[in-house]
């Protein structure tokens, strides 16, 4: 099929990861009492961001040899 599924997955996780990272880094810190004092938005946002970028890199590398 003409669309590499890793591109939308990578894009979505990059966007969601970036959103969470920024929100965790800049937003109100008092909301983290329920998550045991851990800034889950920042930490998990970074994880998702990295995962998204890995998907995108994997997709673009595969496409170079001219596969359909």
């Amino acid at each position: 099929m003409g669309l590499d599924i890793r591109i939308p997955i990578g894009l979505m996780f990059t966007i969601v990861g970036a959103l969470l990272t920024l929100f965790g880094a800049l937003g109100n810190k008092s909301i983290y009492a329920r998550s045991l004092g851990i800034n889950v938005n920042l930490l998990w946002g970074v994880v998702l961001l990295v995962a998204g970028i890995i998907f995108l890199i994997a997709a673009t590398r595969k496409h170079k040899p001219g596969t359909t």
Partner: protein
Amino acid sequence: MNLTWIDWTIMLVYLAFVLGIGVALKRFVRNSTDFFLAGRSLPAWVCGLAFLSANLGAQEVIGMAASGAKYGIATSHFYWIGAVPAMVFVGIFMMPFYYGSRARSVPEYLRLRFDEKTRGLNAISFATMTVFSSGISMYAMAKLIQVLHVLDRPFAVLGWPHSWMFHTSILISAVVVLAYIFLGGLTSAIYNEVLQFFLIVAGFFPLVLLGLKDVGGWTGLKQQLPEAFTHSWRGMAHANTNPMGIEAFGLVMGLGFVLSFGYWCTDFLVVQRAMAADSMSAARRTPLIASIPKMLFPFLVILPGMIAIALPTPVAQAGVTRSQPAQGLISAKIDEATGTAQLDSNGRPVLDYDLAIPNTLLHYFPTGVLGLGLTALLASFMSGMAGNVTAFNTVWTYDIYQSYINKTATDQHYLWMGRMATVGGIVLSIAAAYAATHFNNIMDFLQLVFAFVNAPLFATFLLGMFWKRTTGHGAFLGLLSGTAAAALHHGMTLPQGATPGIKGGWLNVVHRYPSEMAQNFWTAIWAFTACFVVTVLISLLTRAREEEELVGLVYSLTSKPEEDHHLPWFARPLPLGIAVLLASVILNVIFW
């Protein structure tokens, strides 16, 4: 519940991608094979994750967490002796016939192997079942959106009445699923299932990490739960010594062999994902690849349930304002008529275990990652619905419309029919969802009937694929007898503490099981045995088909698929399957 703009943004990003995939794939759908079978062109890992994700509907995610809260780690039997061995079996032994016969659906395989009536029986019962399952998924999602107050804020802003919330939820989910399947067909459904798979993992994994940290890891969880909750096999020697109320034989035969093999090996909803693979080898690897994350899913869905029941009940629980009896994070079911907690026959409150996952999400997640968690829940509901709808449109078009209504139309006509069937399937699902709101018992009744119809299926496929003497008459009568045996067994037995009726015993109670689960497993064992015996007897009395007609359909008459010896072991079905089984055994031993 305090959702903010970031939660909304994450949900909208998800919806945009789901629809975007459908739009992007539309131009690749040129003929009916593209629409119904994804052009048989997808790589194994994509099909594998979709194979897993199509089953990850509401019943799975919410239900398995509920079961974790109710029975503890023993729920993992649904995975480690149920799904995983069945997935290995279908990949290694059955896929060569499904994929190799070029059948376009499971009922069509039955047509090739047996006869028209066996296909008709399977196609019609399966099509009905998918519509109702997707309707139940839709209903559960709309209910959950209400319970979690997801749409309260936007409704307040827009000034819409509260009573529209249920309708709006149904409508949005229906339109989204309809749009992406209508446009991109099975490819679109599969791509979205892969996306949903990663999203479900991304949404629930931090929940498990936080929960485990809170209770002090597995060791801490062990200290806070009864011993039987943290051991999957200890206590299985006798039905009275484990929370599930089932003994090892009933568990292994009923759940492990009959029910799990029956589902994973014969249900077109999952098998369709493997049929979309780009080669025989990829089709065989599809369920094997799926079985690896499947094996780890207990940690993602059962653990939150166990954590929910182990935690101390918070004084003022998030999202719940009225005080009510509860255990852990799970509150009691509320009687809608009186507004007080429902009590069982011993006077104890009936816990609403289905709230295990939603309440744990609300307990730990601050705004931000909460949006991600809710999106993961929505994703699981949608993938469950989409799986059913794609299976329905294919069976309707190929096995009912093309077989009985219009045999000679052009391929473009069947492609058009597939899109119309998608619309029809969604409309029927909506009807089923509303039927569920008005007649809850009718849904229970239908699910019971489907259980009777499904229970004997695996016997038919097992005999059909591995015994060339099996005949069409044998298969057809075997299926009917299996269903009858299931109904009879259900009508004559009753779980402890239940009254005769929908729970069983509607004929005459001759036996009482310690639990409903034990009754279900034994119903399946009776159905399988009856189907097996009747199929064999009738087959011996009727004329077998010529052997040359059965080449490619029966094990002994089909050349074995070639093992690709140049590939590394993990890319070859057989060694991969053995590795998966070994890993499953190890997990059973660790959590013994």
